C-alpha cells in the first residue's frame, strides 16, 4: 500500500487537489473551513515532491487525506438542498459522455459530434447494452438521448438545449419508434435555452411532449439536473429515475429567489434567499420521490458520483436495464411480471452486486403490448401531481363518479353507436342515389322516410342553417348587456402607439364600452377583464361552470404561500386560476378552459392541471370542441415545485388523447402567455391563435437577458412576430372573436364532433 502511494504520489496528490476543489464547489467557496489553505498545502507538496524523503511524503499525504476525509464526512452529514444543486452543477460531476462510455458497451453518436452539431447541448446516440444471464451475453439496442453539459466546453451552453436541439431529439425518438427500440433519456439541463427563433423553445418542447405522450416504445429517463421545461422536453417517460444527488425543480433557486424577493434586474440576489428557496422548492431526489414526480432513486456516493466513479456507472447500468425490463413487463401478462418481481426481490435481498440478471427479457413489443404501454403511460401521468384540495364530501364525489359514467355511456350510445349506424345507412343511401337511377327514387324514398323517422335530424344547427343570411345573421349579437367596469371612469387614456400612428386620446367610457377596449385608429387592444369574454363571447346564459370545487392548495407547504393564496381567493371569489365551463357559440356547444390573470397571474399548479384534464376528458366524452382561452398565464406556479412542472406532461397526455379521439382543440392567447403551459398543453395544439396586441413566448425579456446576455427587441414576443415565426396560425380581433370562433368550429375538426 505504502509503495503504491510513493509510486503514484503525483497522481494521488492531483486526486486530493480535485477533492478539495470539489468540496469548494459544493460549499460555494474555498473559504469554508479554510479549504484554500489545505489546497495550498497540497499544491506546495505537489510542487516540491522531490524535496521530501519517502517517509515525509507518505506522512504528509496521509495527513492531508485524513483532513480531507474529515471535511468530506462533515459536508456529507449536513448536506443542504443548495449544496445538492452545487453538486449537480459541479464540473467534476459525471456527464452524458461518461455514461455513454461506461454504462453502454458501444455507441454511435448521431446527428453530429462535438461542436459539429446542430445543437451540441443535445446528444443522441445509438448504443448497445449487454445483459449477462448465467454467463451468457445478450445485447440490447437502445436510443440514448440527453443533454451534454460538456466537460467545460463553452459551445454546449451548459446543457441548455436550443429549440433545434430538441427537434433533433424528437427526430431520433421517431427513428427509435420506427425501429422498435427503447429510448433512454438523460436529463442534465439547467433549463431550455430561451429563444423564440424557429421552431421556438416553447413550441418545440410542446411538440416533443405531444409526440412523446404516444410514442410506441418504452422510454426510461434519468434525471441528474432537471430544470423545468428543458427537462420535460425529453423527460416524458414510462419510468423516471433520479440520481440521489441530482435536483429536479420548476425553476432554478436563483430564479425563484429573484421572483420571491422581487429583486430588480441587475441587482444581486442575496445568498440566504437563494438557499431558502432551494429548501422550499423541494428539489432533491428524496423530496421528489415523496411527491411521486419520480419513480425511483439511484443511490450515489454521499457527495455525489463523479466522472471516475465506476461502481456508480455499474449500478446505473443495472438500474436502467431493470427499469426498462419493468416497463416492458408491465405491458405483458400480469403473471410474468409478478414472477419477475418476486425473483428480483429475492435476489436483491441476497446480494447487491448489481451484475447479473436471472432472466433475459426482450425489449421489442407486439402491437397489443404497445397499446398497453400507452395505456400505462397515460394512467401513470393521470395519477401523479394531484396536490389540490377538493371541497366536496365523499358522497358528493361518489355521485359525481356515477354521473360521469352514466354520461359516458349516454354519449357513447348517442354519438357513437347510433351515429355510426346512421352514418353507414346514410352513406349507402347517398351512393345509391348518386348513381342517377331516377327510377330507384320510388324505392329509396320510402326507405329514406323510414330512416328519417328512426334517426331524426339532430337539434343542433347544421352549417347551412346558420349561414343562411335570410333566417339569421351571425352578426346579430346581444352585446349591450355587459359593459366592462373599467368604463366607469370619467377620464381619457393614451394609446401606446399614439406616437407612431398619431392615435388620439380615448375617453375611457367610449373605449371600454363601445370600442370593446380597442383603439379605433390603430387597433391596439387594451387589456380587458376575463368576465368580458364570458359575457360577450358565448351565447347568453350558456356558460355553466363545472369542477369549481377543485381548489388550489399549498402542497409543498411553501412558506408564506398560504397567505398569498388566501388573498387571491378572497380577491377573485374563485378557488383556482382556471375556470372550466360548458358554453355555446351560436348554439354549438363546446367545453372551455380559461386561465385568467387575477388569480396568481394565471399560473398553473395542481388544481389548474386537474381541472384542465377533466375539462379535456369532458370534451372527449361529449364529443364537443375544446377551447383553451388564455386570458393570461405566467407559467407554472413555482410554489408548487415539480408538482407544477409535472402538469406539463400530464395535461399534454390528456390533450393528445382528446385530439387522437377526433376532437377539435383550439388555443386562443390573449394578453400575456409565457413559459410552461405554452411549452406543453397549449403549444401542442394544431390551431393556435393570438388576440391582437397579445404577447406569446417562452421566457420573458428579463430572463432572456439574464441567461443569454443578449438584449431582445421590445416587440420580440408580440403576436405579430409569433405569427411570423409560425408559432400561431392567426391573429384575431377581439371584436371578431365570436364570429371567428364559430367559423373555426364549422370548418375545422373531424367528423367525430357531435354537430358534424
Amino acid at each position, binding site marked *: 500500500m505504502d509503495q503504491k502511494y510513493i509510486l503514484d504520489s503525483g497522481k494521488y496528490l492531483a486526486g486530493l487537489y480535485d477533492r478539495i476543489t470539489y468540496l469548494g464547489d459544493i460549499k460555494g467557496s474555498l473559504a469554508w473551513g479554510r479549504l484554500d489553505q489545505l489546497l495550498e498545502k497540497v499544491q506546495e507538496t505537489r510542487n516540491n515532491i522531490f524535496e521530501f524523503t519517502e517517509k515525509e511524503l507518505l506522512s504528509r499525504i496521509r495527513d492531508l487525506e485524513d483532513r480531507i476525509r474529515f471535511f468530506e464526512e462533515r459536508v456529507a452529514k449536513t448536506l443542504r438542498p443548495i449544496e445538492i444543486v452545487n453538486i449537480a452543477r459541479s464540473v467534476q460531476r459525471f456527464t452524458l459522455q461518461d455514461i455513454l462510455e461506461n454504462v453502454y458497451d458501444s455507441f454511435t453518436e448521431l446527428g453530429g459530434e462535438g461542436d459539429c452539431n446542430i445543437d451540441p447541448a443535445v446528444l443522441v446516440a445509438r448504443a448497445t447494452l449487454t445483459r449477462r444471464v448465467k454467463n451468457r451475453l445478450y445485447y440490447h439496442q437502445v436510443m440514448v438521448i440527453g443533454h451534454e453539459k460538456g466537460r467545460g466546453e463553452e459551445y454546449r451552453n451548459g446543457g441548455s438545449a436550443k429549440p433545434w436541439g430538441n427537434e433533433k431529439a424528437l427526430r431520433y425518438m421517431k427513428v427509435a419508434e420506427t425501429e422498435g427500440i427503447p429510448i433512454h433519456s438523460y436529463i442534465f439541463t439547467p433549463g431550455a435555452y430561451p429563444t423564440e427563433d424557429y421552431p421556438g423553445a416553447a413550441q418545440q418542447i410542446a411538440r416533443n411532449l405531444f409526440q412523446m405522450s404516444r410514442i410506441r416504445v418504452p422510454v426510461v429517463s434519468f434525471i441528474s439536473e432537471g430544470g423545468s421545461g428543458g427537462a420535460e422536453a425529453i423527460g416524458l417517460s414510462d419510468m423516471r429515475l433520479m440520481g440521489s444527488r441530482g435536483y429536479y425543480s420548476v425553476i432554478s433557486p436563483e430564479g425563484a429567489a429573484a421572483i420571491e424577493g422581487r429583486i430588480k434586474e441587475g441587482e444581486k440576489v442575496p445568498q440566504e434567499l437563494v438557499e431558502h428557496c432551494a429548501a422550499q422548492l423541494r428539489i432533491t431526489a428524496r423530496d421528489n420521490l415523496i411527491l411521486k414526480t419520480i419513480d425511483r432513486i439511484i443511490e450515489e456516493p454521499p457527495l455525489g458520483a463523479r466522472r471516475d466513479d465506476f461502481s456508480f456507472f455499474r449500478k446505473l447500468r443495472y438500474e436502467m436495464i431493470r427499469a426498462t425490463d419493468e416497463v416492458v413487463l408491465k405491458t405483458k401478462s400480469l403473471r410474468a411480471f409478478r414472477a419477475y418481481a418476486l425473483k428480483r426481490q429475492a435476489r436483491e435481498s441476497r446480494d447487491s452486486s448489481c451484475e447479473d440478471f436471472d432472466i433475459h427479457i426482450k425489449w421489442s413489443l407486439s402491437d397489443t403490448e404497445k397499446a398497453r404501454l400507452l395505456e400505462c403511460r397515460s394512467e401513470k401521468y393521470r395519477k401523479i401531481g394531484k396536490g389540490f384540495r377538493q371541497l366536496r364530501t365523499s358522497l358528493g364525489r361518489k355521485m359525481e363518479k356515477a354521473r360521469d359514467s352514466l354520461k359516458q355511456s349516454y354519449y357513447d350510445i348517442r354519438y357513437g353507436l347510433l351515429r355510426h349506424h346512421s352514418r353507414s345507412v346514410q352513406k349507402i343511401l347517398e351512393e345509391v342515389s348518386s348513381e342517377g337511377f331516377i327510377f330507384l327514387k320510388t324505392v329509396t324514398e320510402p326507405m329514406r322516410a323510414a330512416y328519417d323517422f328512426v334517426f331524426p335530424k339532430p337539434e343542433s344547427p347544421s352549417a347551412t342553417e346558420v349561414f343562411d343570411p335570410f333566417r339569421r345573421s351571425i352578426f346579430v349579437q346581444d352585446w349591450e348587456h355587459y359593459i366592462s367596469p373599467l368604463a366607469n*371612469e*370619467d*377620464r*381619457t*387614456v*393614451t394609446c401606446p402607439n399614439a406616437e407612431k400612428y398619431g392615435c388620439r*386620446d380615448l*375617453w375611457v367610457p367610449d373605449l371600454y364600452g363601445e370600442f370593446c377596449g380597442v383603439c379605433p385608429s390603430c387597433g391596439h387592444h387594451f387589456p380587458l377583464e376575463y368576465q368580458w369574454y364570458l359575457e360577450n363571447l358565448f351565447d347568453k346564459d350558456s356558460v355553466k361552470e363545472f369542477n369549481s370545487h377543485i381548489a388550489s392548495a399549498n402542497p409543498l407547504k411553501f412558506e408564506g404561500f398560504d397567505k398569498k393564496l388566501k388573498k387571491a381567493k378572497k380577491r377573485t371569489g374563485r378557488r383556482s386560476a382556471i375556470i372550466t365551463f360548458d358554453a355555446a357559440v351560436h348554439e354549438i356547444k363546446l367545453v372551455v378552459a380559461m386561465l385568467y390573470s387575477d388569480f396568481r397571474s394565471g399560473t398553473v399548479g395542481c388544481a389548474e392541471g386537474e381541472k384542465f384534464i377533466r375539462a379535456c376528458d369532458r370534451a372527449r366524452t361529449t364529443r364537443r370542441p375544446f377551447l383553451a382561452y388564455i386570458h393570461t398565464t405566467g407559467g407554472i406556479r413555482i410554489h408548487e415545485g415539480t408538482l407544477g412542472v409535472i402538469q406539463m406532461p400530464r395535461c399534454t397526455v390528456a390533450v393528445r388523447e382528446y385530439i387522437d379521439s377526433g376532437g377539435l382543440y383550439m388555443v386562443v392567447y390573449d394578453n400575456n402567455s409565457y413559459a410552461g403551459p405554452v411549452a406543453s398543453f397549449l403549444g401542442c395544439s394544431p390551431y393556435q391563435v393570438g388576440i391582437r396586441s397579445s404577447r406569446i413566448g417562452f421566457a420573458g425579456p428579463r430572463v432572456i437577458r439574464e441567461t443569454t446576455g443578449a*438584449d431582445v*427587441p*421590445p416587440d420580440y414576443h408580440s403576436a405579430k412576430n409569433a405569427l411570423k415565426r409560425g408559432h400561431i396560425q392567426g391573429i384575431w380581433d377581439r371584436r371578431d372573436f365570436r364570429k371567428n370562433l364559430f367559423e373555426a368550429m364549422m370548418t375545422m375538426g373531424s367528423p367525430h364532433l357531435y354537430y358534424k
Partner: protein
Amino acid sequence: MDINLNDLLRQYKSHPYEDHHIDTPHTGVVSFRVKEGQEVKGPSGQWLHRPGTLLYILEREKNPKKITSSFTGKVASLRTELEGTFVQAGERLLTIQHKLNRDEIIDRILRKVLHIFRAPQRARYFFTPETVTFLEKETEKGLSVSTGDEIIIMSLMKRDTFLPYDGPPGIIYKVYFQQGDLVEQDAPLFGVCLPEKLPFVQKVIQRIRTEWDD
C-alpha cells in the same frame, strides 16, 4: 449654393448648439420634471426602446401624459411660470440645447455646401469599377463628375442598375457609404463640391479640425 462659409463658422462659434424646441402636443396642465440647465438624455438602447429623461407631465382629462426627451443636451429657457397652469397646444415650454462636437459641425457645414446625392431606394450600392480604381489611385485629387455620369451601381435582387449623377458638375468630396453597403432610402451616398469652392472648403474644415475643442 452661395453660402458664406466665414459667416457660417462665426455663427457656430458664437452658439455651438443645436436647439430643439419642446412644444406641447395638446392642451393640459403642465408640471415640470426638470430644472434649468439640467442635462437630459435622449432615447437609448439598441432599438431606442428605453425612453429619454422625463421632461414634464401634461395632464388633460385626468390623463397624465409623460413627455420624455428625444434629444440629448441641456435644458434652457424653461418657462417655470407655466408650472401648474393650463396651456394651449403648441405652447413652447423649454428648449434642449444639444452641444455640437467637431464632427457634427463639419458634417453640418458639408451638408450645407456640398451637393448631396441620395439613395433612391433601399438597396446595396457600389461605385463602378473605373471609379473605384480612380478613387484608390488619386486620393489627393478627387474624382470630378459631371451631370449624367454613371458612377454608381444600385444592386437589388440580383439586378444592377446604373444611376446617372444629376447634380451640378464638381468633385466628389465625401463618400457616405462603404462599397456594397445596404443603404436606406434617402440616405446620402456622396457629396459633390463645386471646383471653385473646393480649396476654401478644405481650408475651413482644416481650421475646424485644428481649432475646435469638444
